């Protein structure tokens, strides 16, 4: 009997092990290697130079502030990443909430409207990038250029003059539907009785929305923000096809900087350090959000 139980416990491992092995080999092992690479002086373009241990040199290369008032590029790229991510998340949350309130109404064919708004979320980022770039933002062939010219205005190239606002706008366009998806599910979980009793009590629309409904769906909002953060932080394709990080490095984000460090500078060590810092910062941000979700969940239980 005893051996039978151990055999059963062993047998359970067989269900788990293949998944663990594949995930570990494709994600964990490479990540540990990235951490190791980040301590090496290793340039793919210079095979004549030996690969050698460099300690924290690669990190210092980015973090050091040699002549003070001048801020190194890393900090501005970091600031751009935070700016793009935070503004996108805030816009997604506010617009997503308001739109969900609208879509929670019972009007004929509301599902068609919901479906249309959901659409952009499922569009691959490179396709939405080139579509916006060619058919709308283009100053000669796009709607933006044509409409501005018809109004007697001179259309400036938005992608080179306002790269970050444009990227934030496109990210929001792509991700806001996801927030609507989650927040709307929360709103529809609010019982019809409660909504009716609010109406009978004569609660104004504003009070009903912001003082009663909003607190009831904060959990859904947090879930949307956390998942949104995980996905938006690593967004790469849209930046590549629209601004390509430019002009200069003005719309670089950390993932894009890592990519450029590998493929343009071929500097494996430095790219590794950049990647490790990016992962650390992402995990930190997600952890803070996740804890707040957990706490919330516990207080409900």
């Amino acid at each position, binding site marked *: 009997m005893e051996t039978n139980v151990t055999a059963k416990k062993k047998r359970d491992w067989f269900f788990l092990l293949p998944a663990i092995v594949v995930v570990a080999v*494709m994600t964990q092992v490479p990540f540990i290697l990235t951490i190791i690479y980040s301590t090496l002086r290793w340039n793919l373009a210079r095979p004549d130079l030996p690969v050698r241990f460099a300690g924290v040199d690669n990190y210092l290369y980015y973090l050091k502030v040699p002549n003070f008032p001048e801020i190194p590029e890393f900090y501005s790229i970091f600031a751009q990443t935070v700016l793009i991510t935070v503004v996108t998340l805030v816009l997604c949350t506010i617009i997503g909430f308001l739109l969900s309130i609208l879509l929670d109404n019972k009007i004929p064919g509301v599902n068609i*409207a*919901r479906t249309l708004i959901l659409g952009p979320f499922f569009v691959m980022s*490179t396709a939405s990038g*080139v579509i916006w770039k060619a058919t709308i933002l283009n100053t000669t*062939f796009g709607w933006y250029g044509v409409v501005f010219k018809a109004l007697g205005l001179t259309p400036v190239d938005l992608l080179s003059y306002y790269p970050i606002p444009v990227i934030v706008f496109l990210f929001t366009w792509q991700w806001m539907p996801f927030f609507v998806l989650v927040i709307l599910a929360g709103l529809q979980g609010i019982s019809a009785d409660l909504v009716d009793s609010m109406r009978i009590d004569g609660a104004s629309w504003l009070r009903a929305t912001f003082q009663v409904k909003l607190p009831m769906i904060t959990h859904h909002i947090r879930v949307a923000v956390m998942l949104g953060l995980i996905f938006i932080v690593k967004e790469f*394709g849209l930046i590549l096809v629209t601004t390509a990080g430019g002009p200069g490095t003005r719309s670089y984000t950390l993932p894009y900087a890592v990519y450029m460090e590998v493929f343009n500078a071929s500097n*494996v060590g430095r*790219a590794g350090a950049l990647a490790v810092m990016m992962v650390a910062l992402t995990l930190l941000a997600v952890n803070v959000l996740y804890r707040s979700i957990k706490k919330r969940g516990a207080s409900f239980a």
Partner: protein
Amino acid sequence: MASTRSLKDLSRSMKLRRILRNIALTVVIYAIAIVYFSPVLYMFISGFKTEIQAISPSLHFTPTLETYSKVLSDSSMYGFLRNSLFQVIAGTGLCLLLGVPAAFILAFGKFRKKGTKEKTYTWFITTILLPPVAVLIPLYTWYQAFGLNKTPLGLMLAYVGFHVPIVVWMLHSFFTDVPGEIIEAAEIDGCTRFQQLVHVALPLVRTGIVASALLVIVFIWNEFFLGFNLTSNTTATLPVYMARFREQQGMFIAQLSASSTIAILPAVVLGWMTQKSLVKGLTMGAVKG
């Protein structure tokens, strides 16, 4: 008498106001929805233009199937389409093959040490947080060294590694909703673990499996970063093909529109079909996380 009449008037005017309000709401909601979706809509429509018609943006033209048929008969897109289909079918299939048993055992398995299940589950979840950038450098060098970028199996392996955790995460909450007594009863009746999974648990979590499979399909279909960096010309997928249009300045808007319509259609349609189960899986996974 007078008071009942005014009450009647009041209720009538309230009803009228509600009807007017609903009409206004309907108009506003539809206007927002159509404006929001218009870039995709315009792209779809532009595919029915010829290149010359597409140069200036307008909605006034005689539709033609010329561009769509040109794009579909162009062999350059075929390769990418075939690669994308391969990744979606083989990748998602393997993800389920590995992820479903893992999620099942994480819900019902018995391990010597207490807390093994929780720890393993948390480990899977943490890998979802890992951005692909974190693994790019080693994977890129391996793929170059072993020629893995020249076979679709290479990219597929990476996709499986990155999406199995998503399957585990979404399915875990569905499996924990299955009452443990059912599994125990099956165990007492002499079912092996495999039989418990296939005959007892699977039929009960069908929605979850469909939802996670479709989510993984949409993710893999749209994935760009790994597809861009870990492939060569012969193994690249559709998002990489779409990225190639980034340099041109309005020269081939009709072709671009037709190609992107074909590229995005499967994911958008699947996404629409599954919005309900998707939101259930996502919120359940995150709530119980």
